[in-house]
């Protein structure tokens, strides 16, 4: 996982609350065998509408999504996070996230930053009156900045630590690579290996 310290990118105002994972990515997009390429499914139903914010310049290339409360509710599909990341988002800002979504996001390096709803409203106004405004999200300071606007955000300490260090669960385990190697040295040599096979 790529370490996350600070990120600056175009802010995208999504004035909706209760954005559920079926909206983020409908079930028909879950069949593919890859973990990448889910961007075509992102907000598929809404994107059919030409006026949807992600269909408009300069928001198309945005990377900081500013959404209403209760973002990511519904099914536990990890694909919702994959779709947002694949589209290029690094941060979602909301005043409240569904737990499972927040957990999945943390695993995949997408920052779910929790701001007061009043700050979300101010950001929406700023991004709508000055489209293309860049938003800077600083994970060390736990602040969101855009032009003159500054606001704090919340994120749990464990997730913050893992994101700052760029550690996914696998990376965390690999910190113990020496212990694993040591364990492997002590395994009896007669234990089975899959290759090469002796003929039956």
């Amino acid at each position: 996982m790529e370490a996350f310290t600070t990120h600056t990118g175009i802010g995208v105002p999504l004035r909706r609350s209760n954005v559920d994972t079926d909206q983020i990515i409908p079930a028909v997009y879950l069949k593919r065998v890859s973990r990448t390429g889910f961007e075509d499914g992102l907000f598929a139903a809404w994107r059919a509408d030409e006026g949807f914010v992600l269909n408009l310049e300069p928001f198309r290339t945005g990377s900081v999504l500013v959404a209403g409360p209760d973002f990511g509710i519904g099914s536990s599909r990890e694909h919702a996070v994959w779709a947002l990341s694949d589209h290029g988002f690094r941060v979602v800002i909301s005043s409240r996230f569904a737990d499972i979504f927040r957990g999945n996001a943390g695993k995949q390096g997408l920052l779910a930053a929790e701001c007061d709803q009043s700050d979300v409203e101010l950001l929406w106004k700023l991004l709508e009156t000055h489209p293309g405004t860049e938003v800077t999200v600083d994970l060390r300071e736990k602040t969101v900045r855009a032009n003159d606007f500054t606001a704090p955000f919340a994120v749990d300490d464990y997730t913050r630590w893992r994101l700052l260090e760029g550690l996914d669960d696998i990376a965390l385990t690999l910190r113990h690579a020496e212990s694993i190697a040591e364990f492997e040295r002590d395994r009896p040599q007669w234990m089975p290996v899959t290759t090469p096979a002796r003929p039956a």
Partner: protein
Amino acid sequence: MVPVYGKSSLWEDAVTVMGKTLAEKVWDAHVVRRGSGAEPDLLYIDLHLVHEVTSPQAFDGLRLAGRPVRRPDLTIATEDHNVPTLDIELPIADPVSRTQVDTLRKNCAEFGVRLHPMGDAEQGIVHVVGPQLGLTQPGLTVVCGDSHTSTHGAFGALAFGIGTSEVEHVLATQTLPLRPFRTLAINVDGQLRPGVTAKDVILAVIAKIGTGGGQGYVLEYRGAAIRALSMEARMTICNMSIEAGARAGMIAPDDTTFAYLAGRPHAPAGADWDAAVARWRELATDPDAEFDAEVHLDASELTPYVTWGTNPGQGLPLSGEVPDPERIGDENARIAAEKALSYMDLTPGTRLRDIAVDTVFLGSCTNGRIEDLRAAADVLRGHKVADGVRMLVVPGSMRVRAAAEAEGLDKVFLAAGAEWRAAGCSMCLGMNPDQLKPGERAASTSNRNFEGRQGKGGRTHLVSPLVAAATAVRGTLSSPDDL
């Protein structure tokens, strides 16, 4: 001091350490790093089995992170869930299935993982392939992105199913962060009567403890009836531990286990064999070890079991009748029974023996091994499959298929009017074209009778291979005694 998990440790410092169970011994032998506080233990994984359905995103995750498979030499893949059992030399017709299989092939080639593809002599259901190659051995930790990994516990291995993220974790690190399970002893004492099989034992166990009875536990099957079983029968029992809600099921290794393993392609040989057996003999639960819970069953009281409902706990002796939900005290169980009877289109009071089927499925990782085919063929010999019934015989692996053909079992099945197929999961889950049509009813030797499991709208009665064969002949749920 050796920590003993799952029990109160208050007294451990004051009194001598209690003996350990089989599961605890295998666990303790695999701890790479003991967790402290909320942190789980890091457990080493000896054998990782891979198939086409739950692995694609895991390999893709490795690719994205630029990580290799840490131990391709402890990893093996086979194609099973999607593969057709007819015309296997042709490309797979269903594009979604074909993509999954092709993806597995590409991933295995790229990451250096041994793969047994369709048409290969060693191809088959992942839980049949591991044991028959001798890769599944006592005392190992075995994982696979499939819940029926519990099958391998028959050898005294700690074997359990994992999700796709964990598949990636094991591919990358050969370990898993895990919290210990609790232990539940299933004591099956006495002797099974003739015609009563391992499948009847496990269906009776599940009917007794319920589909949630094993939640959070590793089950250890013990007692004289278990000791008397062959390895294949033990696999049938451990296979369905998951249907009792358990993560894993185990049986202590003994001479039966060693005899099964001796000479298999991946079993140790020569001096290694002696060293291995000496180690394996120490795995059995210590006499003074304590389980977190225990259950007792008398094998001599068991008769052939069948399920009447839509979960594996809804089972009864074949001599019984479809239960009346009105007479079930527990409200949740009553509602579940009502729903099940309506889905199964059954009336309370109907004799189970009077239930007519359209289809008989002999196969799956529960009952798709050579002994299962032999048992069914013995019943079928000299009989015909009833009019209007189709019987599908799907060996668990191509090696099982070859062994059956060497014994002429294929001829017995074909002469009886059954279909003789290539190896795979097939109608166990209907991901390939082998499916029930809406409203069709099957007697099936597989492990799950969930709504729609074998095809949308299909109805499933779980049975042993003996009952499956007798049912095929009579057209209604039957045991060989009815012939």
